[in-house]
């Protein structure tokens, strides 16, 4: 099966003196309809990968090597107009923090209809109807009322549902979710994950799911890629990765995860020697690719 999203040997550099390498030959594939988890600790480069795919990497960064191919088309260096056409319609994004991702002075209605009218050419009334349907699909009660409300009148979970509705509004082929549950409390997290799973099943959308929560990826994802220091260390199907992790870092990551089914277990931090080894490997790699 050919991949929907095919990231090959992606290098991202930060323009600084001296330049710093943010991504080191990252390769990652997402097949149509698949959920791929991208895990790693803070600063591993997970979010940078998503930003390069979306084309919203910070202005002081450069892709110096590799490519991002989406649906058979190289989207590494698209013009802004071409990208605008793609975002929202083919590739959508669910942001991390629902509290800040909605415009505080705009009603929910126009925030949803913006994307519908932009890409689907609907008139105002049709877009409004569609928006209400979308809110129903993300299980928000009284969609008509919510459409008239402002973001501050909704709870965090409700706002995240609105953002998910916006992401799935144009039936995109790929949704990138950047830690969509991190800012929510645990009970809401579970509902949001169920919702994403349900929408994914109904629409057949592929999802690139970025998180540092191994528990989440275990339940949700088909494939998992483990990142550290801007590198993908290991990538395998979820079942295989959990059953027999190959890379030492993956094993260390599992050992460092609290298990509620085994409360007596001691938690082992990632060994400093391992981190040193990874940093050294990265340095050697940088010397070779510079």
């Amino acid at each position: 099966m050919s991949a929907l999203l095919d990231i090959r040997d992606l290098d991202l550099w930060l323009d600084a003196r001296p330049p710093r390498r943010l991504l080191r030959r990252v390769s990652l594939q997402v097949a149509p309809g698949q959920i791929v988890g991208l895990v790693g600790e803070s600063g591993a480069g997970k979010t940078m990968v998503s930003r390069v795919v979306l084309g919203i990497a910070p202005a002081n960064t450069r892709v110096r090597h590799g490519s991002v191919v989406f649906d058979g088309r190289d989207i590494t260096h698209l013009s802004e107009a071409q990208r605008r056409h793609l975002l929202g319609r083919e590739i959508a994004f669910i942001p991390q923090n629902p509290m800040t991702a909605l415009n505080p002075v705009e009603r929910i209605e126009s925030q949803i209809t913006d994307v519908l009218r932009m890409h689907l050419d609907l008139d105002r009334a049709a877009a409004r109807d569609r928006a209400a349907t979308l809110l129903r699909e993300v299980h928000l009660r009284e969609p008509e009322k919510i459409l008239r409300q402002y973001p501050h009148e909704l709870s965090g979970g409700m706002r995240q549902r609105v953002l998910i509705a916006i992401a799935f509004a144009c039936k995109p082929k790929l949704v990138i979710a950047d830690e969509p549950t991190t800012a929510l409390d645990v009970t809401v997290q579970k509902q949001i994950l169920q919702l994403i799973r349900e929408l994914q099943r109904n629409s057949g959308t592929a999802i690139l799911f970025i998180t540092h929560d191994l528990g989440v990826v275990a339940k949700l994802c088909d494939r998992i890629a483990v990142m550290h220091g801007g590198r993908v260390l290991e990538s395998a199907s979820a079942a295989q990765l959990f059953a027999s992790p190959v890379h030492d870092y993956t094993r260390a990551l599992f050992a460092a995860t609290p298990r509620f089914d085994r409360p007596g277990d001691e938690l082992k931090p990632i060994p400093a020697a391992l981190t040193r080894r990874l940093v050294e490997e990265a340095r050697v790699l940088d010397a070779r690719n510079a």
Partner: protein
Amino acid sequence: MKALALLRNPRVAFGMLVLLALFIAAAGAPWLSSYDPLEQDLLNSFQSPGVAGGDDAHPLGTDSLGRDILARLIYGARPALIVAFVAAFFAGLLGTALGLAAGYAGGRLDAAISRLVDVWMSFPSVLLCIVLAAVLGAGLHTVVIAIIVIDWTRFCRVVRAETMLQKSHDYVASAVTIGLGPGRIVASEILPNVAPLLLTLFTLEMGIAIVVEAILSFVGLSVSSGMPTWGGLIQEGRLYVNQAWWLMAAPMACIIVAVLGLNALGDGMRDEIDPVKAR
């Protein structure tokens, strides 16, 4: 609903009252005053104000040519208010457009606009104003243009900073990821979030414009002499301050109250609208 809540702030209420009084004076001048501001009555010159024991027919007295001071003050509200609104509006328009562009685009455009603002602001403003007025010739349009040319930088700087702040918020990134273009994002996402600040700036700028108008009419660069302006009244009154103090005191009081009111309105609104202080 929100507007009523704003009025509960004493400063906003005071400012709105002053603004309303200015409006009524400017619009209703012919009905409010029983005298023509230009009508001379040489037999009744230097009448002391009715309130200070003079003739009740002239509550604020008359000037050297026997013209009614109250009438001249009321008519003087017209140029003051016109300048305040028109100049503040266009200065706001120009400054906001450039500020939004600089703040959102960043990079070279931002550097160019910011340096321009720096250079612009390094000129002493009153001097620049007078030079401009001298070049353009006296008249109300000159005052308006001078204020726009000088004060757009105030709007530009503040709007640029606020735009940069808003741009860093997630909702702007969200707008980008649904495929909205930069023009659309600035106009329909960022501008509404900058609007409360603009309202405050606009009010403060109106106060500044009234002062500048007074300065320019004091030096005779505003409306042609004869037509009453507050600055012009002060200038005329200056000559007779030892015989008739009210000639100068009355227009000064008008300017002070108007500017105080507009500043209070601006400050009050800033406090009310600022979400950090509101919580």
